[in-house]
């Protein structure tokens, strides 16, 4: 698994993908925070404006990171190589996912100047900011697990990207008023609550408020496990032709 992880992580840097991604990621974070979020005009020393845009950025950037994980192997035929090496499928799935996640966490970590900036400008609650970073990293993992799973189902990276964005979008907005209103009129309350409990936004917002609740952690880890498990199943299904 470590060998798979190392190869996959290094492959981001072997091509311009890593640098293009990091630049766009940091640039987009900056634009959203300062221009759309009016970071300086809020007059408060916190990073709420910064973290508020993470789900929406991840919605596009995480599927872009995950789309090649399996689709590329299928297209080039190297999947035949990796699946005939003596490593269990689950180790390959986990190694690939962890490589993508580590890369996403690296990108997130490179936003540290904004943390320094807000500390220079005022005295924010650094506990809340730390919790928000943890929540953001977990949410990125959930998006990547979805993207990896969908990538395993196709040999076309564009299809993998588009479908992953759609699925991630559904998970992101599940708790938004717009979606819930559709159900509220007729669906029983427990169903509405179940749908809203699937929302990335709800769980991320809860963590970003500074409270790392066990339920939110369980939610993200269960979601990641579920999609990685589905990923293994899809690969096994492919083996039976």
């Amino acid at each position, binding site marked *: 698994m470590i*060998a798979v992880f190392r190869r996959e992580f290094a492959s981001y840097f*072997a091509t311009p993908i890593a640098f293009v991604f990091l630049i766009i990621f940091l640039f987009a974070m900056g634009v959203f925070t300062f221009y759309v979020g009016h970071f300086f005009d809020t007059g408060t020393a916190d990073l709420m404006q910064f973290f508020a845009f993470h789900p929406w950025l991840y919605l596009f950037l995480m599927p872009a990171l995950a789309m090649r994980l399996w689709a590329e192997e299928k297209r080039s*035929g190297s999947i*035949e190589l990796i699946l*005939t*090496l003596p490593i269990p499928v689950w180790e390959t799935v986990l190694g690939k996912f962890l490589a993508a996640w580590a890369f996403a966490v690296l990108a997130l970590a490179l936003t540290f100047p904004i943390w320094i900036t807000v500390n220079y400008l005022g005295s924010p609650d650094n506990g809340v900011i730390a919790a928000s970073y943890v929540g953001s990293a977990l949410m990125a993992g959930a998006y990547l697990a979805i993207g990896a799973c969908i990538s395993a189902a196709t040999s076309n990276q564009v299809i993998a990207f588009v479908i992953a964005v759609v699925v991630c979008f559904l998970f992101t907005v599940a708790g938004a008023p717009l979606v819930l209103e559709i159900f509220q009129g007729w669906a029983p309350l427990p169903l509405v609550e179940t749908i809203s409990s699937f929302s990335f936004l709800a769980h991320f917002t809860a963590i970003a408020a500074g409270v790392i609740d066990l339920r939110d952690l369980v939610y993200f880890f269960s979601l990641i496990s579920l999609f990685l498990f589905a990923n293994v199943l899809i690969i096994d299904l492919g083996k039976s*032709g």
Partner: protein
Amino acid sequence: MLEIENLTKHFGAVTAVAGLSLSVGQGEVLGFLGPNGAGKTTTMKMVTGFLAPDGGTARICGHDIVSDTRAAQMRIGYLPEGAPAYGEMTPREFLNFIARVRGLHGAAAGLARDMAVARTGLEAVIDRPIENLSKGFRRRVGLAQAILHDPEVLILDEPTDGLDPNQKHAVRALIRDIAAKKTIIISTHVLEEVEAVCSRAVIIDRGRLVADGTPAALAARAASGKLDDVFRQLTSAEAAA
């Protein structure tokens, strides 16, 4: 060393491999012949654990590929059709990765890599990205990957396809060189190759074994004494029936 037992595979309504049984011993170089679509590649994919058989199994040095997949895969070196590899890696990085996955570390890994590189003549291109290499070199990278861990069983799907006459000669010399201690299966369309390197040849047609013997014995079946004529007789007769 390698026992194939009643191996069967269907793709929808099409039967790709229909109850194939075959036993190959140490020191044998088996030429695996048959027209396109006869089931050669499908058989190899099942023997190496890439595809799950619908019926039957294969045993590699006594290890069942279906129930004891990892142990069986550890003993196989496999060159898939088209010699897939990770294009962005250099042969050095790629072979290091294969060594790690094969459980070789440190000096042992370096030694195994250098040996495989020397045997396949990759020294000149060892630090160039695989995607920039010629078809011949890419095929040799695939071969190097297959022999790196000094496996007992080698399964090579069209190892000389796309090589120039000099490169073909080099690959055949390599196969003859290591044949004594190994069990080797080579699928090929090139009948002269069978006469050049194989100690035994089987012809399969529509998933069934239609001939089995030394290349000379098979060739003697035709009035002309040529292997191509036997090949055409056996396979076209089946197709017409």
